[in-house]
């Protein structure tokens, strides 16, 4: 890695392309907040599909999951696989229904049903997750770039945050959808190149001990059923309330486009997510089990690919991280603007003023996330700490709201369930039994979400029954 000379023209071309798309979107597509938040609801299915896939594929998944797979083998697939499989599920049961409500943000939906206090609570809980995810992705990007350019982590954080903010600031969701599509192909090519070269450089696979280690390559892996179950539940719960992803569906030009976009994007990313575990397994094979998790991906990049190919893989890390970072920054900016500014501070603001407040919020979110990573640099856990809070509170409430009529008439139950779920999971994460704190993940004796989610679901079920037992429901017309 020390002798690596990046192909600067390639990296510069990529960054210039992103900037050009931002300028194009700003000049031709963006005139109001709705254009920034959900691309004016004019997106077709394939833009949504590639954008959904690109958002799920990021620096944390490349660097983090390959690091986890070094210890957990093939089963590390579940640290991301459950998210993308849940995305396919959302395409049929949740996203088309949410798109039909014409909301722009998830907290907005809670107010439509129950009022402002539900909106504020949902907003806080969603921000906890999205800010954590944004900080985690900025961190992964900064770590790679600081090592590549031999600059400090702080300088790298500033540089990469600024580069991403430029095109999001200019083009909002439109720029994100188009850049994500390009980024998806770059990441797919780069990561595939690394796996192919990894296998080619591992001479005589059959002779290696890992190829005969059915436990390490087992579908439950060394962590066993409990660990895999925790990853699956976290994945489903976080995805169900992941606003950055759901907003892609809200950007669709029709219900059919939303469904198709999520379905195709979910399938593409389900197939792709095997790549980081393969990289981790290959790294263990080549460098042994003692290689630090956070070094797995970079060691493979520079040790296996080398030269111009390494530059392509470096660009794919840039693309992977920027495609997620742009989305989470944009979605938080939409919350700050729509759920805070135009709702509570200045409801009568002109469309132009709202647009510029939105853009200012994009800058603010980028800086905030960089600061969070600086003070709490546990890369993958940043995804999950806030994710568990959201996954035990807003996510089950949102799914229940969309699927069950009775929950839509139970405001107190929904509020108390979200509040209790979040407080319990925060308390457990502070006081719960931790087995091991690694650079990639914290290993829990029992994952906090596995403990708290059943409590939230039970509260929603029993509370709704109590609150609506005297309500008479009208019969609905058959939608078919």
């Amino acid at each position, binding site marked *: 890695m020390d002798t690596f000379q990046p192909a600067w023209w390639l990296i510069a071309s990529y960054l210039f392309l992103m900037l050009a798309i931002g300028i194009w979107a700003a000049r031709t597509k963006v005139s109001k907040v*709705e254009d920034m938040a959900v691309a004016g609801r004019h997106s077709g299915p394939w833009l949504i599909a590639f954008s959904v896939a690109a958002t799920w594929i990021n620096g944390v998944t490349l660097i983090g999951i390959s690091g986890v797979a070094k210890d957990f083998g*093939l*089963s590390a*697939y*579940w640290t991301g*696989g*459950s998210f993308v*499989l*849940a995305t*396919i*599920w959302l395409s*049929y*049961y949740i996203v*088309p*229904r*949410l798109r*039909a*409500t*014409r*909301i*722009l943000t998830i907290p*907005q939906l809670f*107010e*439509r*049903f129950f*009022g*402002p206090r539900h909106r504020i609570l949902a907003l806080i809980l969603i921000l906890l997750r999205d800010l954590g995810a944004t900080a985690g992705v900025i961190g992964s990007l900064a770590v790679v770039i600081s090592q590549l350019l031999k600059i400090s982590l702080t300088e790298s954080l500033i540089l990469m945050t600024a580069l991403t903010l430029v095109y999001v600031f200019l083009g909002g969701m439109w720029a994100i959808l188009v850049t994500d599509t390009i980024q998806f192909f770059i990441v797919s090519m780069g990561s595939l190149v690394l796996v192919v070269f990894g*296998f080619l450089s591992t001479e005589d*696979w*059959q002779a290696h001990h890992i*190829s*005969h280690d*059915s436990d390490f*390559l*087992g*579908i439950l892996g060394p962590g066993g059923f409990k660990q895999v179950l925790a990853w*699956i539940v976290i994945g*489903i719960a976080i995805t169900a309330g992941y606003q950055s992803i759901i907003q892609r569906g809200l950007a669709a030009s029709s*219900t059919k486009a939303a469904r198709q976009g999520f379905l195709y994007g979910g399938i593409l990313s*389900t197939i792709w997510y*095997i790549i980081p575990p*393969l990289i981790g*397994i290959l790294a263990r094979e080549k460098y042994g089990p003692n290689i630090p998790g956070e070094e797995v991906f970079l060691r493979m990049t520079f040790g296996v690919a080398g030269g111009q190919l390494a530059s392509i893989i470096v660009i794919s890390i840039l693309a992977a991280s920027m495609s997620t970072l742009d989305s989470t920054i944009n979605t938080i900016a939409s919350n700050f603007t*729509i759920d805070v500014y*135009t*709702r509570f501070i200045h*409801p*009568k603001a002109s469309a132009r003023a709202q647009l510029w407040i939105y853009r200012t919020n994009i800058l603010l979110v980028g800086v905030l996330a960089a600061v969070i990573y600086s003070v709490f640099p546990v890369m993958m856990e940043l995804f999950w700490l806030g994710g568990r809070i959201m996954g035990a509170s807003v996510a089950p409430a949102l799914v229940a709201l*969309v*699927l069950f*009529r009775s929950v*839509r*008439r139970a405001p107190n139950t929904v509020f108390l369930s979200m509040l209790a779920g979040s407080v319990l999971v925060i308390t457990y994460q502070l006081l719960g039994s931790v087995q091991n704190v690694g650079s990639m993940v914290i290993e829990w004796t029992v994952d906090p979400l596995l403990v708290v989610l059943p409590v939230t679901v039970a509260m929603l079920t029993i509370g709704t029954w109590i609150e609506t037992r005297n309500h008479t429901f*009208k019969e*609905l*017309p058959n*939608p*078919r």
Partner: protein
Amino acid sequence: MSHAATDHSEKSDEALRYSEEERDLMDEVPSPSLNPWISLALLILLGFVYLWIWKIILLKGP
């Protein structure tokens, strides 16, 4: 969704609360007849099958 429900983005935000009738309009969007929880379980099962295929590939050698 009826026009009454889809018209909301034009109004100021705080005025927007669903009436009793509007609360169930999202149910008018067609969903698959398969129970959502069974379909979720089947998808996870599909993930295990996908992983099992990779296990076989890796054990035999790519």
